[in-house]
């Protein structure tokens, strides 16, 4: 029987990076007030939510080769389900959360079934278009605030006295726990027989079919799992922000998710989490710069993105691996 997390794995370069990131996330509610920057707790809560979304995208993109440019749709479904149910007075988490996740799964099933009929560029554009369809739906929903978004008055209620999401710290550690759970579940899935099939289909789909795998079924299942996981991120986001707007599922969000995955290291389990942390810290750092750069941080961020694509293959985890192995080779 293997231990939950291999201790040896933590001693590898990317293991060390992952450990630092986990510690940073786990201890931020202590670190941030200590250095007098309490708002970092909020920044990290948000970062971890996007990390969950990025982990879910990595499952299909990094391991399954499905480049979905519409993953934010699931984030929006999760968040809007909480918002709309709360708007109608349903605040019990035991109702809200299952509804959100089931809806994410259903939409994943429909979107996946349509887009998996295609490949390559078509797949990218169809996932984008389907997600935009939901975006326009949210914009046209006047009852739920259209463009202005929907304010959520009550966070999800679990009906458990000591477990109250109104307490920011409880919510923070719930997010932290869900993130770790998602990484763990991804790890199990990727190494399971199912994961082997999905990875095999990414590597050589024709060969998989010749071996006897109806690969589309497996890819569709992976698409649905990733959708549910991303819907979960949306559920948490609605609770954290107490607000949801069409912006949550607009296409730049999907682009940012892809970027987080690539930045951290595609197809590495913890890469997307590292990517999300670096993404948000960098954005925060640039936006808080005084003067010109702070006002126009995207003028730096856009080219940065391009440079990462052009020169940092394998993302941060790949970079760390290379640096470490070069040092090792010199010894």
């Amino acid at each position, binding site marked *: 029987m293997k231990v939950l997390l291999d201790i040896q794995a933590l001693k590898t370069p990317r293991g060390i990076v992952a450990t630092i990131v986990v510690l940073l996330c786990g201890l931020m509610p202590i670190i941030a007030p200590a250095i007098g920057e309490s708002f970092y707790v909020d920044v990290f809560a948000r970062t971890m939510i996007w990390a969950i979304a990025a982990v879910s995208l990595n499952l299909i*993109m990094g391991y399954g080769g499905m*480049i979905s*440019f519409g993953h934010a749709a699931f984030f929006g479904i999760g968040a809007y389900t909480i918002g709309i149910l709360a708007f109608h007075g349903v605040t019990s988490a035991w109702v809200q959360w299952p509804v959100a996740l089931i809806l994410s799964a259903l939409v994943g099933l429909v979107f996946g079934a*349509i887009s998996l*009929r*295609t490949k*390559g*560029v*078509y797949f*990218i*554009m*169809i996932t*984008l*278009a*389907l997600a*935009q*369809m939901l975006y*326009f*739906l949210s*914009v*046209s*929903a*006047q*009852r739920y605030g259209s463009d202005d978004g929907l304010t959520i008055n009550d966070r999800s209620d679990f009906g458990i006295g000591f477990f109250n999401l109104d307490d920011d710290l409880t919510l923070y550690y719930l997010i932290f726990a869900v993130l770790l759970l998602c990484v763990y579940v991804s790890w199990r899935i990727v190494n399971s027989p199912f994961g082997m099939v999905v990875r095999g289909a990414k590597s050589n789909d024709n060969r998989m079919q010749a071996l006897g795998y109806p690969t589309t079924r497996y890819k569709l299942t992976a698409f649905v799992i990733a959708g549910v996981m991303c819907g979960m991120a949306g559920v948490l986001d609605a609770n954290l922000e107490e607000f949801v707007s069409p912006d949550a599922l607009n*296409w*730049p969000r999907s*682009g940012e998710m*892809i*970027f987080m995955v*690539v930045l951290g290291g595609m197809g590495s389990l913890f890469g997307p989490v590292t990517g999300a942390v670096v993404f948000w810290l960098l954005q925060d750092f640039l936006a808080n710069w005084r003067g010109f750069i702070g006002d*126009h*941080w*995207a*003028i730096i*961020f*856009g*080219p*940065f*993105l*391009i440079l*990462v*694509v*052009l020169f940092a293959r394998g993302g941060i985890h790949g970079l760390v691996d290379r640096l470490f192995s070069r040092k090792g080779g010199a010894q």
Partner: protein
Amino acid sequence: MNYVLFAEQFLNGFQLGMILFLLAAGLTLVFGIMDLVNLAHGSLYMLGAYFAATFSHLTGSFVWAILLAVPAMVAAGIIIEMIALRTLYARDHLDQVLATFGLILFFNELTRIVWGPEGQVIPLPAYLDGSVALPLGIDYPVYRLVIIGCGLAVALGLWVLVSKTRIGMLIRAGSSNREMAGALGVNIATLFTVVFGIGAALAGFGGMIITPITQAEVGMGEIILIQAFVVVVIGGIGSIKGAFIAAILIGVIDTMGRSFLDLLLLFILPANAAEAAGPALSSMLIFILMAGILFFRPQGLFPPKGAR
């Protein structure tokens, strides 16, 4: 009678279709020939609008604004291709998507820095700023007819360019078989730059001619880009004919849907439900259409020959 409104909306849809075609034509050429996913195509549309607004401001003439802005867009397209996009041809689609996503962020911010956050307008000369009486008692803005005319003229010009000229032959050779074209002595790098320049000019031209009706603003390219994607996907990647037909189809269906879908829904739904569902459904209409077409024809309506 309602048919006047109906005819007007049909023409409006046709006009939107022409703008969509201007974007989709360049997009589909770049896809088909260079196998490049260029998300920043909408940025070219935006740049065209801002260029024309500036030239209009400087010269005081709408016509001069267009005449100066089009070559400026060709130049901008060539520069962008040589600096940023050339290295992306050899990369996979994911890299292209991400890098051109970065380009969008860059261009939006650059525009904000250069032109400021407010939108820019292009005033129309008096002779374009009226209505004209069409048969059947329809009054229709002259300028929208001009847009339709421009779109049709460009479509005709593209058709002549691609099917009758030497450069068109090279484009077709390049899109069907890159190695073959290379073996024929075609300088592929130059061909790609030229094609991208044409695509940039087309997208920019679309942005220029729509601006007098709307205005030039940051982010204007992204909304229309998604619709142009739908056009390209429905038409079949690489097919200009497909782009033309799909653009008109999408333009008309989208515009008509927004105007009449709630009326149609009144037949099957109670009034308040129809009023709520109308806008929601009409904004989703073209995507539902796309999903339906792709379900039966995953390669689009007019897949180019030799498509994988």
